[in-house]
């Protein structure tokens, strides 16, 4: 297990280096400099800015300096907010993105697993059709579209919730639902299919035959085994959730990392873009690693060495 973790971590570092290098190269290909504003800056100012940001150095020197900084937890300077560094800005956005993502993920589990369970236990009943219908619907409609429907219903028509912003739990409800609906749908689908599959196994018949109470069979025998595939799907979904939050953040005006990234693109803030992409790639890689390690905890049949 330890060997596996070390090997995976090593690979994550290599992938992140490649991601950094590709992003760095792409940013240098973007036409127009970071100082192109509506009014042209005097050449002396541009020169000084270039020196401050190390843009007068060669490409590889710049990349090397950037990596050296990253090793020390310094993602470089923002090009727009010239007195702040990217690490600061990302750390400021991180709690919002994280709270939104985790709330959405918890919602997805709280809705998805019981919905899938109910559907599987009463197969071909009204509950089942309802569950399948909703999981199909929410698996195909993007959270962005769902978010718009929610805003029109709860903010515009019913005046119950604010259209966006950050700070109160009320402002979290709609974005968390919009972001969590898709994983909830996937989780419900997989839970249903998985429970139906496990219920047909011989050891479940054995458990019932030896006179165990239905509740024990359900929770100890069926659910424990059925939830492994759910974990398989939930992990990548969580990663997807982190990366997908930027448009939900934009829609609901949540000052998280995703929205910062969008602003960075508009302002040609290469420092911020670089930092945000690296952060997302890092978060996704770590989440996937943790999920893979969790499999071994949940399912003793999985061994990594």
């Amino acid at each position, binding site marked *: 297990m330890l060997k596996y973790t070390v090997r995976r971590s090593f690979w994550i570092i290599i*992938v*992140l280096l*490649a*991601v950094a290098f*590709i*992003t760095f190269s*792409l*940013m240098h*290909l*973007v*036409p127009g400099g970071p100082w192109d504003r509506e009014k042209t800056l005097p050449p002396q100012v541009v020169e000084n800015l270039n020196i401050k940001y190390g843009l007068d150095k060669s490409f590889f020197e710049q990349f090397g300096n950037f990596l050296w900084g990253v090793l020390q937890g310094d993602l470089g300077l923002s090009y727009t907010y010239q007195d702040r560094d990217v690490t600061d800005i990302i750390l400021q956005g991180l709690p919002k993105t994280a709270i939104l993502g985790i709330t959405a993920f918890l919602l997805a589990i709280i809705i998805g697993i019981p919905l899938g369970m109910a559907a599987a236990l009463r197969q071909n009943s009204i509950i089942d059709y309802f569950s399948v219908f909703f999981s*199909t*619907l929410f*698996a*195909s*409609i*993007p959270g*962005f*579209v*769902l978010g*718009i*429907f929610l*805003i*029109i219903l709860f*903010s*515009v*028509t019913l005046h119950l919730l604010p*259209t966006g912003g950050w700070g109160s739990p009320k402002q979290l409800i709609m974005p968390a639902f919009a972001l969590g609906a898709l994983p909830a749908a996937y989780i419900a689908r997989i839970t249903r*299919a998985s429970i139906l599959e496990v219920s047909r196994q011989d050891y479940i018949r054995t458990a019932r035959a030896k006179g165990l109470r239905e509740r024990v069979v359900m929770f100890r025998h069926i659910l424990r085994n059925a939830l492994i595939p759910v974990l398989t799907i939930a992990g990548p979904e969580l990663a997807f959730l982190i*990366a*997908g939050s*930027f*448009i939900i953040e*934009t*829609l609901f005006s949540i000052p998280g990392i995703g929205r910062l*990234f*969008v602003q960075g*693109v*508009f302002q*040609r803030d290469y420092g911020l*873009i670089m930092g*945000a*992409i690296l952060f*997302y*790639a890092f978060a*996704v*890689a770590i989440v996937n690693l943790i999920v893979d390690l969790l499999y071994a905890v949940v399912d003793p049949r999985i061994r990594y060495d």
Partner: protein
Amino acid sequence: MSMAEDVVQTEAVRPHHTLWGDAFIRLRRNRLAVVGGVLVLLVALAAIFVPIFSPYGFAQQNLDAIREGPSWSHLFGTDELGRDVFTRLFAGARTSLMVGIFVQVIVIVIGLPIGAIAAYAGGRTDNLIMRFVDVMYAFPDILLIILIRAILGGSIYMIFLAIGLVAWVNVARLVRGQILSLKERDFATAARAMGAPGRYIVWRHLLPNSLGPIIVLITFGIPRAIFAEAALSYIGIGIKPPTPSWGTMIRDGYDLIFSAPHLVLFPAIALGILMLAFTFLGDGLRDALDPRLRR
């Protein structure tokens, strides 16, 4: 059991059915897939004909009739410049369908040869290509699309290219996996034994046999590309006006959501319906083309 074997078996019983014919019959029996297919067809027809026969041009302004709600003269109302939302919606459908289709063309042109080369060359070439694909997967895809879009500029073709340059990895990975598993099969061994060159085997035997899963992936890729464009346009770096795009319509209408919610509602519904339709169709195709996966 491979699809080729399926054909042999079904032919023994029902001599006139081909693999594709069987798949089509299975597809028609799937109610959701039929609904999806019909919806896609309707949207496509409307996208072609509504802008042609509409009494209004999609960019035609009428400052005497701004922000009107739905009425008989403007079925879906008018926007802040007095443009007919109904006409704009289906002109936007053109954009969306074009994005969906052209991106998939790019994805095939890039992904298919790369996947095939990786699988057939094997060894170091395969390793190198697949490691690169792994790195591409590590990128948050919409953010990478945004960055590439910044390099390529904002013309509609460059937006196709930006999305395609990120989305090809799925096809490459699928094609590689398919070819790797198919090239060990007896029919591939037989072709090799008869002296067929590698390229011939890939083109005539391995790729045609992987066509089913590729078609399914492409069908699912269409709504993803459509959404990517809508997202880009929504945050303001996608399709440039005056070309209508649902993402742009949502963005422009959002400021007026309290006074004229229809400006946001209609494009959002259209986007939702089109994505739903393609997903239904994709689900149906997957079940129809790969009967082994049916539950």
